[in-house]
């Protein structure tokens, strides 16, 4: 479903990725934790095809059409309404009109945005905007979700809601990669865990029931001691 093989990349003399290899199947969620500058976002961008790696290869079955991206940057147009944004992005994925109408209604209802659908994005709160970004990413029913610090700027309640929604997506069989610097945020969702530092995976294992407290301790050891 999603794979990366011996990825290597650098920005000038600064290494960003070094020997990253992994693969994910349907329903798996990989949470990648690492400090700022570890190479997490670069890895996601390489998988999405936004950056061509200097070494190795990565890909997603179904290509770009199969990818849904949710980041702290919402990729929404501030002067368009939520509905106009959803329809524009769906149109680029050639989602049939009938499906657009159905998914739009369903997603807006589930994300609590039905009343804000015709408001311009610039008038929404941060939490509402992030929920609109999630709707945007799900409009074309992607098989793979790439999440780049999706909880940034969300209040506790909105973060809870997002976790619930992402759990549903994984249960629906989507493969998901979530990158974050905050171990507590991504733990519940993950089937697999990776710790990243200086462009490398310093640990990679199934979560195996470990909770955020255990993982935080392991993370500190792995990232500080690597």
């Amino acid at each position: 479903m999603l794979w990366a093989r011996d990825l290597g990349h650098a920005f000038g003399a600064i290494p960003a990725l070094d020997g990253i290899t992994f693969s994910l199947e349907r329903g798996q969620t990989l949470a990648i934790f690492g400090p700022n500058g570890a190479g997490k976002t670069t890895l996601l961008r390489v998988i999405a095809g936004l950056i061509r790696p200097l070494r190795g290869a990565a890909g997603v079955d179904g290509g770009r059409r199969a990818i849904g991206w949710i980041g702290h940057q919402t990729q929404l147009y501030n002067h368009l309404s939520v509905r106009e944004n959803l329809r524009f992005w769906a149109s680029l994925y050639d989602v049939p009109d009938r499906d657009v109408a159905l998914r739009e209604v369903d997603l807006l209802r589930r994300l609590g945005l039905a009343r804000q659908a015709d408001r311009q994005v610039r008038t929404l709160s941060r939490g509402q905007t992030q929920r609109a970004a999630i709707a945007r990413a799900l409009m074309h029913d992607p098989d793979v979700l790439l999440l780049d610090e999706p909880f940034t700027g969300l209040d506790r309640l909105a973060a809870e809601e997002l976790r619930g929604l992402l759990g549903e997506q994984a249960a629906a069989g989507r493969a998901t990669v979530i990158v974050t610097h905050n171990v507590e945020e991504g733990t519940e969702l993950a089937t697999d865990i990776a710790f990243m530092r200086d462009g490398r995976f310093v640990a990679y294992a199934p979560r195996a029931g470990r909770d955020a407290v255990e993982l935080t301790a392991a993370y500190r050891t792995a990232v500080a001691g690597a």
Partner: protein
Amino acid sequence: MRDLLRHAWRVTRKDLRLEFRSRTALTSALVFTALVLVVFEHGRDPTAVPTLNLAPSILWVTFSFASMLALNRAFQAELENHALDGLLLAPISRTSLFWGKLGANLVFVALVQVTGMLLFMLFFNVPVWRVWAPLAAVTALATVGFIAVGTLFSAMVVRTRFAELMLPVLLLPFLLPPLIAAVQVTVQLFAGRPLSEVAGWLRLLAAYDICFVTLATLLFPFTVTE
């Protein structure tokens, strides 16, 4: 080809909607056009140089710089919330994206030119209405290639720190051939000469359009891929 044009139209339509709602670039280009024409109207001495000799240069200098203001906005909107990443992730060809942006830019510049032409008629008492059809054709011919280059450069510089300064610096050398040709043709038109007398300049404009629209289309994908 149908997919390419369909996606390009969707990008154009979105850009037009965004601009007509925010009216940032359009307003500044129109105000700039009006200001330049007013300054020229009041700053010149009609007894020193006949209006008919001076008017074509004034017209084309105004059009060129106003177009640059409009071009600056082409990719600025895509930086907002990193929407450009969304466009690059979407399963549309880079050529669709370029043509979509080119289409929107041509509409903006055409609006600025129509308004500028009306003000020009008002201020300079040049018999534009007698040659409006050939003048419109020459304006279109002189604009297409230049806007194609401008759209390409706009994508190149949008992530640089001084994008608004870089664009004119890069673009001005490429602007000279169509600018000179357009001024020469316009002089002849205002003097009531037939188009056959400026066939050479018209061929130059057509060759410029073909050459630079093709080149810009081919080079655009390299400007947006990291």
